[in-house]
């Protein structure tokens, strides 16, 4: 079965939409005209991520010899551009002695996972399922 140019273009658009939505929380919804939802994601998710960093949470390394560390790294990675920006600026080293360390990790991990959920929602909206 051959893929038509229109289907290929639609597929490319969907990939781009998902990438944009992953890199910048809410960008996919803003692109699709869901302004209010997009703005909520754009503000709430980076704020949650920033609180996680402020609470001295850790951005985990991709070390799958310890499966939980590897999985937490994947969840952190779900935050998109903010993840790379934080790494580049030297944030997310984590301070295991801090009282708020575990809370910080919870905020970072859940912010990343929620952003992945937002990407899936944007994909569903683009396909007309919602």
């Amino acid at each position, binding site marked *: 079965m051959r893929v038509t140019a229109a289907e290929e273009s639609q597929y490319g658009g969907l990939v781009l939409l998902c990438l944009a939505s992953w890199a910048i929380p809410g960008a996919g919804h803003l692109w699709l005209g869901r302004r209010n*939802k997009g703005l*909520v*994601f754009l503000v709430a998710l980076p704020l949650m991520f920033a609180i996680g960093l402020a*609470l001295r949470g850790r951005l985990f390394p991709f070390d799958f010899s310890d499966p939980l560390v590897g999985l937490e790294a994947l969840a952190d990675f779900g935050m998109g551009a903010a993840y790379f920006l934080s790494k580049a600026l030297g944030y997310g080293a984590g301070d295991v002695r801090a*009282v*708020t360390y575990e809370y910080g990790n*919870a*905020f970072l991990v*859940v912010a990343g996972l*929620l952003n992945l959920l937002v990407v899936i929602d944007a994909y569903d909206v683009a396909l007309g399922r919602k």
Partner: protein
Amino acid sequence: MRSHILLLVLFAFFVSLIFAVIAKDDLREQVRLGAVMFAGFVASAVVLGWLMYPFPL
């Protein structure tokens, strides 16, 4: 901020907000679902906290 209960409330707020906005399209339904989820998160955390209270670390 070091208060565990405040951090718990803040966490519950963000998670409820995102879930409610994803799940519902209408503002009134979003507020309703978000409020129910938020109350559920906080109440269950407090109840679980008290249930775990007798167990030593």
